[in-house]
């Protein structure tokens, strides 16, 4: 039982880390787009993006701390 729980935790931590990596790739790509166009996205959206990053990091913490 405990082994399955550990495997489940590792699996979801890897999934959420993958999502964070994709998100980081998007931010890097966004940086290039801003450099070429000099167009900044609205402040509301920037706050939204930070919220998404915090959510993903929070999910990893939730998965690590969860107990069946």
């Amino acid at each position, binding site marked *: 039982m405990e082994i399955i*729980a550990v495997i*489940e935790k590792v699996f979801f931590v890897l999934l959420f880390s993958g999502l964070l990596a994709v998100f980081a790739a998007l931010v890097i790509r966004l940086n290039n787009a801003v450099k070429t166009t000099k*167009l900044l996205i609205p402040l509301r*959206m920037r706050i939204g993006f930070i919220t998404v990053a915090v959510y*993903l990091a929070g*999910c990893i913490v939730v998965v690590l701390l969860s107990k069946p």
Partner: protein
Amino acid sequence: MHVTEHEKLILLKHSPGEKIVCVQRQHWTSLAFPFILPVFIILTLGEVAIFLSVQHFFVINPLLYELLFHSFLFCIGGVLVFGVYIYLFWFYQFYIVTNKRIMHRRHFTLGGRHNDEVFIDATPVREIIRMASNPIFDLLHLEDVYVYFQRLERPEPFIFKKPEEPREIENIMEKAAVKKLD
């Protein structure tokens, strides 16, 4: 969200005598359509989780609850990251018409075409078609504008997919077809 004058000015390096006639993004509703399926999946998963937690027909392993909850969190995370990509893709995508060329520019994309450009002087416009792909889009004025050219090297049309103002683009391309744009 319409493109501002400031944005128009910094989007393009002009050649001598070139003037921007029109800059448009895709219609904002194009942001909503990709989310229909993911939101449906999340709602279904949520309903299954609620049903399993309240039913008394069979006993469920607590590990399954955890698995469902984490899957639910992951689905929401996936939709959020996908949403960020869709928004940025929409925000940095422009249809630009100048008196010399028409362009479709994607400044934020992971693969695919970054730039599609047709010089109007070298490729005269032959045919312009404005059409909606279904009755709902027709009611919402979400129309595509297809521009065909009199040139064998460019048999495929230049497509303005659901621009903000399809009629304005149609009018401009009609002017370009019969005379030079000022």
